[in-house]
């Protein structure tokens, strides 16, 4: 029993210590003097790596999820004779929930794991130590541009996901199943509120972007610099980021759309 309590204590201390180190790392990375021009160029390079290169998986996933929503929604709404509300259902599902959440999960798998592996490999091959000895802070040079790139890219990817998803829903609902095009788009336009739906969805995306990218860069920066350490950290990034996104989604949904 005593051993079990001691184990819980050690684990809690370790988690708190991890959180403290991750917070310090982030603070040191994003606050401080640096050459704005160089910093901006490095961030743009990373936006290409984590954002532009994630476009294909986001577009394809958004299209299929929109199509599935169209198909499932039509089947259910037809039972109630309300298939003209399909546009509303597809758009609200995507803007409020599926867009931010699925994009964040895909981002964690595609870009988050890549960020962890890249920073981890730089640590294992002493490139980070080498930067330090050249007098360049790796937190400013390596971590910060990747963090900002993730925070900028994910909300944009989420918007693209939602837009493509709506088109996918229209493709199935309007073009294949025969829902009236005017009802589909007019209902969507009438029921989606910019502040309540689009803006709240974007806030979710920004929160997910901060959390997912933070976890990814921290896991890379703090890993044990061996091949096994890189593999474990990459797995941790995907698992922790996915759980964090799902947990935070419930909390944010409750605050934004619930009665809490």
């Amino acid at each position, binding site marked *: 029993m005593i051993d079990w309590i001691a184990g819980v204590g050690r684990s809690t201390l370790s988690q708190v210590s991890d959180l403290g180190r991750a917070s310090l790392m982030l603070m040191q990375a994003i606050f401080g003097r640096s050459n704005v021009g*160089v910093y901006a160029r490095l961030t743009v390079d990373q936006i290409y790596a984590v954002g532009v290169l994630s476009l294909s998986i986001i577009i394809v996933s958004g299209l299929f999820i929109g199509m599935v929503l169209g198909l499932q929604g039509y089947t259910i709404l037809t039972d109630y004779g309300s298939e003209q509300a399909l546009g509303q259902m597809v758009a609200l599902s995507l803007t409020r929930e599926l867009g931010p959440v699925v994009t964040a999960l895909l981002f964690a798998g595609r870009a988050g794991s890549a960020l962890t592996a890249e920073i981890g490999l730089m640590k294992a091959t002493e*490139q980070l130590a*080498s930067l*330090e*000895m*050249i*007098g360049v*802070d790796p937190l400013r040079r390596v971590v910060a541009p990747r963090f900002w790139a993730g925070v900028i890219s994910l909300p944009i990817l989420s918007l693209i996901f939602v837009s493509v998803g709506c088109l996918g829903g229209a493709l199935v609902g309007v073009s294949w199943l025969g829902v009236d095009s005017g009802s589909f788009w007019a209902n969507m336009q009438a029921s989606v509120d910019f502040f309540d739906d689009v803006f709240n969805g974007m806030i979710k995306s920004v929160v997910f972007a901060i959390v997912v990218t933070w976890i990814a860069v921290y896991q890379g920066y703090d890993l044990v610099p061996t091949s096994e350490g890189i593999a474990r950290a990459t797995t941790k990034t995907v698992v922790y980021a996915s759980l964090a996104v799902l947990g935070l989604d419930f909390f944010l949904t409750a605050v934004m759309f619930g009665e809490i």
Partner: protein
Amino acid sequence: MTASAFVEIEDVGFRRDRRVIYDGLNATVPRGKITAIVGPSGTGKTTLLRLIGGQLKPESGDVRVDGVSVQSLKRAELFQLRKRMGMLFQSGALFAELSVFENVAFPLRVHTDLDDELIRLIVLMKLEAVGLRGAVDLVPSELSGGMQRRVALARAIALDPEMIMYDEPFAGQDPIGLGVLLSLVKQLNQALGLTSLVVSHDLQETLSIADHVIMIANNRVAFEGSPAVMQSSNDPLVQQFLHGSPDGPVRFHFPAPALEDALS
């Protein structure tokens, strides 16, 4: 601080997890000289370089570089101090995505306002010094381990630092490369008045260019002095190391329970 000391290590204690690396380490690195740091594997020679560079902090004691206590510096001050140092890592630690040219140019680009033409001239001169001017457009993955270390040396001297720390610079070098590097370390030291710290297992080669030797064993400095004094020392520990004897005061085996107990 003594007038001739560039680095002073005073009563330093350091542990990795529970394993004691240093227990009251004292040493001095003279200014403008080549100091060899030698000792058996795992005694913390590279760790000493990292303590001097401020990448690690001692548990106790003080590490001073040019009179400045390294562990008391703030993060930004530490990065300023490191601009005065160069370090050649054991693995080379070149930036994988940059070409040889860009690797050597990197410190110049981030710390100076020199124009591209001047940077090109400096980079080519540094690469010429290590015999790799012809590899200027290659990327690190196209080079052998020894060549990567030579490029890393060119990068370490790009800013003409006051002190260079070499971590195993001769490992993986063929006899020609080794000879060239030995003479390069010596020439850099004499021509630029650098303070050089060389960690190496190539004992005779390193002692041939060193002015000062620090031998680390059993968690402390086992010998400090000139190579000539070291060679003539009667200390059994020094003699064991110089002659590579398996038996003596320096343990070859990592601490462990008796073999009989482990096998029973």
